[in-house]
């Protein structure tokens, strides 16, 4: 018998809000975190806008020691530590402990860790000065860097690992943490993901021409999920973290419960039948959604809201079609749907976790954040669903009990997780 798993803590460092109070206010208000990025312009990027959490030196010092901050340039690890520590403390747990907590672990995903640190190191190595790398290079460039920093700061003694599945990473990490707890291997897991900011991470996407290069003058309206004028994704960055905990443990310590994680599924389209390194096989996406529903014993009709992947590329209409087919629901029968990416851009490996934090906040506080920059829904989307199903204004009148969240990534990988309002222990 699997253990029930609930969410007892949340933390976030997002382009439009750092820390839960600012982030909550921003997503309710539909506030964009996308800004003009002078550095991208200087480096001749086609897309010269992006989203990055705004973090002062004073704020950094609340999370990392002055020694940890020496020669520290890994923005993803910084965001991950901020979100992770916040989530831990939000769950009523302490970072001050003498001995390891063998009941608690962490799985924080990342696409690339410490690209700025890797760049520094590559220059030194090429100059024949490898010794100058010191001791700070390895922890900042290892993929498990975020988990390793947090494991040390919080004294976690259960599984400490990282996952990586491109833009599905954040959603997948929640699923993996869920499975670990459901199987009884840990009482609680810090789940989530992070992504670096800046040109060395975003450059490859700019070169692929998948980023929006037409909106440099209008950052706030540049990321346009589901819109007829969507012109490519806008790069973002940051981190989201969630404390997943067995229901037993949460009840035992009287923790606040934000929502229940019912479970989910991950798979791949095998890069067949229309799938490729960069595009999803629709059959894979549909199967992933259906597998999530069936494993969670949730009927398609019970889904109230879809927190989509919806990146503001030409793939958005395909995603809507896949949801419609997988759920067997079209027209006015289709669930409500929205995308956070209009506000924060596409935070790559951090996307799924930041967006899940938004989903869980909405469930707990009874609001549905607006999918901004979708004044002109794509005509192909309107062939499947009426525009009223797209939540474009803050809604507090909708009765949302069950939210499905998906993330799709390069490599034709999919992950899907289902959150539900917590209805008591029975």
């Amino acid at each position, binding site marked *: 018998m699997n253990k029930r798993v609930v969410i007892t803590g949340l933390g976030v460092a997002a382009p439009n809000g750092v820390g839960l109070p600012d982030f909550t206010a921003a997503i309710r208000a539909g506030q964009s975190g996308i800004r003009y990025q002078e550095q991208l312009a200087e480096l001749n990027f086609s897309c010269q806008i992006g989203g990055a959490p705004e973090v002062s030196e004073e704020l950094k010092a609340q999370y990392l020691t002055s*020694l940890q901050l020496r*020669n520290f340039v890994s923005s993803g690890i910084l965001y991950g530590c901020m979100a992770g520590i916040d989530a831990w403390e939000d769950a009523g747990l302490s970072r001050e402990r003498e001995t390891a907590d063998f009941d608690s672990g962490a799985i924080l995903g990342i696409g690339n860790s410490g690209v700025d640190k890797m760049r520094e190191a590559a220059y030194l190595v090429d100059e024949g000065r490898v010794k100058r790398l*010191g*001791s*700070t290079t390895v922890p900042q460039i290892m993929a498990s860097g975020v988990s390793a920093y947090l494991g040390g700061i919080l004294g976690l003694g259960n599984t400490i690992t990282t996952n990586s599945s491109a833009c599905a990473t954040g959603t997948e990490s929640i699923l993996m943490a869920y499975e670990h707890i459901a199987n009884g291997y840990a009482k609680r897991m810090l789940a989530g993901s992070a992504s670096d900011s800046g040109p060395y991470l975003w450059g490859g996407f700019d070169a692929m021409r998948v980023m929006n290069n037409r909106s440099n003058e209008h950052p706030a309206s540049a990321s346009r999920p589901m819109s007829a004028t969507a012109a490519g994704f806008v790069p973002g960055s940051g981190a989201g973290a969630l404390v997943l905990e067995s229901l037993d443990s949460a009840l035992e310590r009287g923790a606040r419960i934000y929502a229940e994680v019912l479970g989910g599924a991950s798979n791949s389209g095998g890069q067949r039948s229309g799938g490729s390194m960069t595009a999803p096989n629709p059959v894979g996406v549909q199967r992933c959604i259906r597998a999530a529903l069936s494993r969670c014993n949730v009927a398609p009709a019970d889904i109230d809201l879809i927190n989509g992947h919806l990146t503001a590329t030409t793939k958005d209409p395909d995603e809507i079609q896949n949801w419609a087919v997988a759920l067997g629901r079209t027209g006015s029968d289709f669930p409500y749907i929205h995308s956070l990416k209009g506000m924060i851009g596409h935070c790559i490996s951090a996307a799924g976790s930041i967006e899940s934090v938004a989903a869980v906040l909405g469930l707990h506080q009874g609001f549905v954040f607006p999918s901004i920059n979708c004044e002109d829904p794509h005509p192909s989307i309107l062939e499947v669903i009426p525009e009223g199903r797209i939540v474009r204004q803050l809604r507090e009148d909708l009765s949302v009990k069950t939210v499905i969240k998906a993330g799709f990534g390069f490599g034709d990988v999919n992950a899907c997780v289902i959150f539900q309002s917590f209805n008591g222990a029975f």
Partner: protein
Amino acid sequence: MNQAERLEALRRIIKPYVTDEEAFGNLTEETDFIKDLKINSAHLVDIILDVEDEFDIEIEDEAMEKMLTVKAALSVIEEKAG
């Protein structure tokens, strides 16, 4: 730079890495970086880099391996920086 100035510079360099503040307050030439100051051994290489920058010297692996105490570090610095 005389011996006292070199010691002062060394004290400034190692300060951020120290985890035993009391031992740091009682620092003498005999003080051991790892045993007394409880400096994480991984950080010794960072201290060497900071010493190289401060005194504009280069420290080879062999000399580096000896630099485990204040006395040994000062001796390497004196030899290199003259």
